[in-house]
Structures are given as structure tokens and as C-alpha cells.
């Protein structure tokens, strides 16, 4: 590598391009609590928060625990004229498993359980060493890239609104009781939203990069 390109590389380190609109910005250190937004499209560039890493890990851990609870506890119970029918979260996922709709079962399992769990796992894997001040674990960058790519496909919060709509639809016809798994899932959604609000993508990448070089 020539001296010229080395100098240019160093120069590029001080620049940052807005991921939404490509506007160039000079990178400077953002103090915790401050929010840096793009001058042109106002997208949030960086929003470092004190102890954010630890908080995100704790929230992701509690989300995993709540998901396990949501899978194994009773979800909803329907009673009509003395007859009961109980449905767990897994029953809901298996709802499409007969006939032509069978492929949807895989999609349901992925959207509601597998992808959210994968995201939580990948985020913990990426951020845990950083919260404890260590160098990132191998493939941390791939794990975090996957977590970000899966973001729109982890549909736990969409599912819970679907449950609410279904409950109102059925409530007129029969007596319904809501099991602990339902509340575990509600908790999971709240925790997921909190966690995503704490996380600033560019800040995580900068920290990962800095830790890798240290």
C-alpha cells in the first residue's frame, strides 16, 4: 500500500455517510445522551446512551425467558356450554398444518418464535463481550448484521395485535380465559420494543470496530 492511499484511508475514517440518504458528515465523538441526526433527511445517525449495552443484553435475556414461558404455559382457553378447548402457542403455530396451507406452518413458526429468538441470541452474542469490556467474539459482525436483517421479519408484536383482534372476535360467542403464556408474550413484546429503542445501529458498529482494533 502506498503512502498516498494510507493517508486517504485515514481521511475516510473521519467521514460518515448517512445510511438513508448518502449525505457526508464529519464524524466526531457523540457524548452519551446526545443524538446525532442527518442534516438532510433527519435520520438518527448515532445515539449513544450510558449503560445501553448492558440494558440491551438484560432486555434480550428477559425476552428469551419470556418466550420460553410463552411456549410452555397455557395460552388461551375457550369454554362453550361446559366444553373446554385449550390452545397453546404451539397449537396456534400448527393451525395451518393440515391441507394446502401446510407451508404456512413453517412461516408461522419462523415469524413468531424462531426469528425473534435468533435475533435475541445474535444481539446477546454481539454485545455481551462489549458490555464487559472484552474484544468481540468471532463472527460478531456477521451475527449483528443478521440481527439487523431479521428485524422486520421478527413479528412478535404483530402477532400480539392479531391475538387481540381474534379475542374480540370470539369474545361474543364463548367464554374466554387468558393463560399466563399470553401475559408472558405481552411482556416479551414490551421488552422487545424497549430494547430496539435503546439500540443505535451505527453506535454498535463503531464500538465493535473500536474494540476489534484495541
Amino acid at each position, binding site marked *: 500500500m502506498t503512502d498516498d*492511499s494510507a493517508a*486517504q484511508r485515514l481521511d*475516510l475514517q473521519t*467521514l*460518515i*455517510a448517512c*445510511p*438513508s*440518504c*448518502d*449525505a*457526508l*458528515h*464529519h*464524524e*466526531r465523538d457523540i457524548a452519551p445522551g446526545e443524538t446525532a441526526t442527518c*442534516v*438532510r*433527511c433527519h435520520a438518527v*445517525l448515532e445515539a449513544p446512551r450510558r449503560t445501553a449495552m448492558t440494558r440491551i443484553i438484560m432486555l434480550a435475556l428477559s425476552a428469551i425467558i419470556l418466550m420460553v414461558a410463552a411456549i410452555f404455559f397455557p395460552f*388461551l382457553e*375457550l369454554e*362453550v*356450554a361446559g366444553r373446554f*378447548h385449550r*390452545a397453546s402457542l404451539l397449537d*396456534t*403455530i400448527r*393451525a*395451518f398444518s393440515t391441507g*394446502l*396451507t401446510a407451508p*404456512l406452518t413453517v*412461516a*408461522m413458526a419462523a*415469524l*413468531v418464535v424462531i426469528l425473534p429468538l435468533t435475533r435475541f441470541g445474535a444481539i446477546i452474542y454481539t454485545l455481551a463481550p462489549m458490555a464487559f469490556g472484552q474484544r468481540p467474539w468471532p463472527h460478531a*459482525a*456477521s451475527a*449483528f*448484521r443478521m440481527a439487523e436483517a431479521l428485524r*422486520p*421479519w421478527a*413479528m412478535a408484536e*404483530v*402477532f400480539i395485535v*392479531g*391475538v387481540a*383482534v*381474534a379475542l*374480540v*372476535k*370470539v369474545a*361474543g*360467542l*364463548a367464554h374466554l380465559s387468558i393463560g399466563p403464556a399470553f401475559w408472558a408474550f405481552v411482556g416479551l413484546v414490551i421488552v422487545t420494543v424497549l430494547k430496539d429503542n435503546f439500540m443505535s*445501529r*451505527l453506535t454498535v*458498529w463503531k464500538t*465493535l470496530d473500536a474494540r476489534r482494533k484495541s
Partner: protein
Amino acid sequence: MENAGRAPQVLTAHAAGLVGCVQCGRVHRPDVAICDRCGAVVTPPDLRSLQRVWAWLFAGLVVYIPANVFPMLRTSMLGQTTESTIYGGVVDLVHHGSYGIAAIVFVASIIIPCAKFAAIIFLALTVQRKVRMSAHARHKLYEVVEFIGRWSMIDVFVVAILSSLVQLDFAASINPGIAAVSFALSVAFTMISAESFDARLIWNADGEDYDHG
């Protein structure tokens, strides 16, 4: 964060002969293919990416038709089986007097998908044309489309919950219809279409004569 130029004269990475990573914001020289900070593939804003947007959008439109024609739910009550499409389900809800839920289902499964198709078509068409709608407004529109897409999946989840819950043999049972599959596919295809859209193209279209606050 300071800006390199100053609004209204914003310098983009592309205009500076550089290329920015859309994943982590790192700026590279144009011959770099893989970002050295995050490992993502680095691509300059490219009009050819619109082809992918159109392809997925078209696929989403095609499977949206059977989603509306075929039944979404098969309800059996005391030996009588009725099949209802998405629209039929909304009409039933209105007849039962549950206007709130009817509104949610109507918005989530009819208004949002149609509005999303229209919005993506509009955004993709206006990339290469001058329009009166400012880049700011179009960027907002893109963010809304990206955010709202997944919420159309509500209807598929409602069908799943209803058919797992209401299984009381003869008295009442609800089973999913084939339209659930094509509706889910339609939502997924449009989500991929929206994600393939490169938001940077919205701003490139304005070129240097960008002058909105």
C-alpha cells in the same frame, strides 16, 4: 454532527466520488466491495436496483388476487359450513356490530396492502422523474411503507389463532382457507420489494438543486 457541505448544498458520498456503507455508515473508496467495518456488501446507489423492486412488487400484486378471491376462513356451526373471503369477513363483522374490529381488519388487510402497492409504484416511478413532492416528503413516505408493511400480517395471525382456538367439533369450528397462504406471500413479497428499494435514490433524483428546508 457537522455536515461536510452545508444545507442546502449537501455533499453526498456518491457526489464526492466515494461510496457509503448503508449498514454502518463507513465511507469507502469506490473500488471497495466489502465494508471493512461491518462486512456488508458496499454498493453505490444504482438505478438497476429498481428492477428488483419491480419484480417483487409484481409478484406481490399477482398473489394478492387469489388472496381476495379464495376463502380465508371456513366456519362450521352446527353442521353448516360457510366460507368467507377477506372482504366477506369484514362485512360479517359489520353485520355483527363490531365496527372497531371490522375497521382494524379492513385497514390491515385491504387499505394497507393497496396503499403500499401504490406508494412503492409512486416512489419507484419518481426516482427518475422530477416531481412536485419534495424528497423529504417522499423519504417520509418510504419510511412509513417500510414500517407498516409487516402489520398486514395481522390477518394471517388472526386466522391462525381463531382456527386453533375454535375447535369444538360439531358445535363450532373454524379452519383456515387457502387464501391465507397467498395473503402471507403477498405481504412477504411486498416487504422484500420495499426493502430492495434504495432510499438514497430518492435524494439522488434531486441532484444538486436541492433547496427544501
